[in-house]
């Protein structure tokens, strides 16, 4: 077909922290790099990250990367790959110093070093005292990082395609990925961007759930593009529910509040986390705290007229700490609840937050799939980094502050691998025009007018189904019903039609394609959850309450045709001894 075509060395889909960190590395290495984003870069959801980024800088308390590694392995409930985790924790201090050099306005300690705060799941000495590892710019760390990265990309003259919606990957006959077809949102026109390498950095899929801390654009597009290209998704059953979303609304109240000394209370005014995690208390891992809140509410100790939430108390921190360290969450509480946390506690409840699963990669950012005898063969030309990827450093439960770290470390690692790849691959390969036609057909499908089903109805239904059938606590029959319900929605999706088939800035069309993606991701999530008959990290099965290392210490791989495969966890680190699985108590 005759469409606009552009050629670059490297294509990056996504302009959040992951995509922009990679772009900067590539642009500074003089590669021709294009970044495609469906929103202007600084509107990507990295901007909303509040609490901070982990690195064992030891600016406040003694620390080292090995302790950080232990905490991450334990936090992952031993589903994280220990080679990738070692790599990330070792690279963390450098990643944060680089940010400082890029201009990130980190908060500072009296001696001028970067300010660090305590976060959940952090310890000294392999499970000892609380560590202080999260580097912060007040409670606007994501904003500070994303803007600085964008700014440095301006300086490095990265080429941006702002407000372009990526539709599908294109490839050659042998399965190498050679770019993508996207739509310019302003005109509705398609464009083919050919590239020797393509990096997916499209972020998470929080829009699967009704109540979420995620932006409306977090619809798992890159993951669904990978699925459609025949790549499986890994560990999709592990979805993080953050303990402290604003009850009923979903806006995040950072774990940093508890790091600064805030704590949770139930209707009796009891500091209930003391019962669930005697040592770490309110700073236990997120899965532990979320379950505790859900149990308190279920057993009738919730607060408010409907007894449907608990309270996060922080007034005792005093106005100084709140105004200096937590100004953003004070704004949020005042805007959305008319509550000033200097005086009153904030009502909170577990809220869908983070997609631990995603596109399987190795620690170089290469997308890997099982092939013949090998569980991890690299897909030529395709990379993934950030929340859409699964390296896997978060395993069954991500630690707070480790995702910003993940996007920086693996955004950079992927770029470095791409730079090396480009040295050996100087020419563009011819692509298979059929793959272009398929992507265009997906776009053209929304040109058929009519009055079939509405996007809105399917989307609302999907979020409700996911919340009821695939939430904090899970169980066989409920999950099985969930699978059927999502499948039914996938059926109905065929009959969805747009009332508005215009071209200019047609957001309805974008939302329709996002919903298609969400449905694929929802299927991956419920089916993987149904199959995993154990409880590990964020995946808690009432019917299988124990972790089962014998049978389940393995990664799930979900294919678009509904089949599931598994591959072993990489328990061997790069240089240190492996941390063998233990009972996980906080």
């Amino acid at each position, binding site marked *: 077909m005759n469409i606009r075509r552009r050629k670059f060395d490297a294509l990056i889909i996504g302009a959040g922290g992951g995509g922009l960190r990679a772009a900067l590395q590539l642009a500074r290495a003089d590669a021709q790099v294009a970044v495609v984003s469906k*929103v*202007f870069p*600084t*509107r*990507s*959801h990295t*901007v*909303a990250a509040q609490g901070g980024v982990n690195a064992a800088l030891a600016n406040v308390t003694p620390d080292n990367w090995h302790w950080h590694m232990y905490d991450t392995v334990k936090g992952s409930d031993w589903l994280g790959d220990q080679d990738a985790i070692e790599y990330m924790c070792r690279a963390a*201090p450098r990643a*944060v*110093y680089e940010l*400082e*050099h*890029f*201009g990130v*306005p*980190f*908060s*500072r*300690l*009296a*001696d*001028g*070093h*970067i300010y660090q705060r305590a976060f959940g799941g952090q310890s000294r000495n392999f499970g000892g005292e609380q560590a202080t590892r999260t580097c912060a*710019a007040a409670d*606007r760390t994501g*904003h*500070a990082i994303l*803007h*600085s990265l964008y*700014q*440095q990309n*301006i*300086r490095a003259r990265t080429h941006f395609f702002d407000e372009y919606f990526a539709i599908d990957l294109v490839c050659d006959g042998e399965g190498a990925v050679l770019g993508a077809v996207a739509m310019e949102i*302003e005109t509705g026109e398609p464009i083919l961007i050919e590239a020797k390498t393509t990096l997916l950095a499209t972020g998470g899929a929080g829009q699967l759930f009704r109540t979420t801390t995620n*932006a*409306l*654009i977090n619809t798992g597009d890159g993951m669904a593009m990978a699925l459609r290209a025949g790549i499986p998704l890994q560990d999709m059953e592990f979805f993080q529910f953050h303990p402290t979303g604003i009850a009923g609304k979903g*806006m995040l109240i950072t774990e940093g509040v508890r790091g600064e000394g805030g704590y949770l209370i139930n209707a009796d005014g009891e500091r209930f986390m003391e019962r669930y995690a005697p040592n770490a208390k309110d700073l236990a891992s997120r899965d532990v705290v979320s379950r505790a809140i859900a149990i308190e509410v279920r057993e009738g100790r919730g607060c408010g007229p409907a007894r449907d939430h608990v309270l996060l108390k922080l007034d005792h921190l005093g106005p100084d700490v709140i105004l200096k360290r937590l100004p*953003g969450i004070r*704004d*949020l509480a005042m*805007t*959305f609840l*008319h509550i000033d946390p200097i005086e009153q506690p904030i009502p909170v409840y577990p809220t869908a937050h983070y997609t631990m699963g995603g596109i399987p990669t190795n620690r170089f950012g290469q997308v890997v799939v099982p092939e013949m005898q090998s569980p991890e063969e690299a897909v030529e030309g395709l990379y993934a980094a950030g929340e859409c990827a699964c390296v896997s450093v978060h395993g069954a439960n991500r630690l707070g502050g480790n995702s910003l770290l993940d996007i920086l470390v693996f955004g950079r690692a992927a770029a470095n691998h791409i730079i090396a790849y480009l040295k050996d691959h100087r020419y563009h390969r011819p692509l298979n025009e059929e793959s272009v036609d398929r992507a265009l057909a997906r776009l053209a499908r929304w040109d058929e007018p009519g009055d079939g089903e*509405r*996007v*809105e109805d399917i989307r609302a239904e999907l979020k409700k189904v996911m919340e009821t059938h695939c939430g904090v606590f899970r169980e066989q029959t409920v999950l099985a019903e969930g699978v059927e319900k999502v499948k039914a929605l996938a059926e109905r999706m065929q009959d969805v039609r*747009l*009332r*508005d088939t*215009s*071209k*200019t*800035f*047609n*957001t*309805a069309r974008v939302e329709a394609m996002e919903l298609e993606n969400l449905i694929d991701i929802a299927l991956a999530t419920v089916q993987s959850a149904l199959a995993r008959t154990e409880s590990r990290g964020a995946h808690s099965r009432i019917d299988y309450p124990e972790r089962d290392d014998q049978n389940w210490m393995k990664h799930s791989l979900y294919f678009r045709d509904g089949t599931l495969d598994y591959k072993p966890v990489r328990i061997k680190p790069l240089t240190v001894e492996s941390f063998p699985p233990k009972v996980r108590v906080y």
Partner: protein
Amino acid sequence: MKFSIYRYNPETGEKPYMQEYVLRDIDPGMMLLEALMRLKQDDETLSFRRSCREGVCGSDAMNVNGRNMLACITPLASLREPVVIRPLPGRPVIRDLVVDMSDFYRQYRAVKPYLIVNDPEPEVERLQTPEERERLDGLYECILCACCSTACPSFWWNPDRFLGPAALLQAWRFLADSRDQATDERLQALEGPYRMFRCHTIMNCVDVCPKGLNPTRAIGRIKHLMLKRSF
């Protein structure tokens, strides 16, 4: 609740017009963005930008009852009826409430909004005292929503030559950073009758900034620094 919303789609050949909408079942505490999303459920053609729905991404700035604001953090309860919603003023309209922001972004890029350091990079972080860091508060938090610049009369008349409050705030953000080493270069780039000096301290920008930032003060500080330097 009654709404009157600016509608324009270049494909239809129709002139822009105001369309009336009515929304029932308003929840207490509901924000304007949610109202717009509900209206869109019944009228898919209504177009606007949005993402974070909590006032941090800067997507959904629009002109509501004559004032620029972010829909997602504007409570319906604070608005007089009918709620008159228009795109940000002074910018070309792409469709409905979506405006062309390219001039705004160009002015932002023009102030070199990035840290410039010529010294070799240390292996660790550069030090900055808490007091030095505090000077960036009220500057770095800008979300590039354009509420300010599109409320600034000087920007309406000279969008190509006057940098506008948002870009100037960022110019000061880097001038104020103890780590930055491009002060002279930055100040020189702001000289001349237009780039900065078109600001007549009308303060519209301060009034509308949803993040409570103060571009006028920042412009004042730049002028002050220029004066100090010229002695």
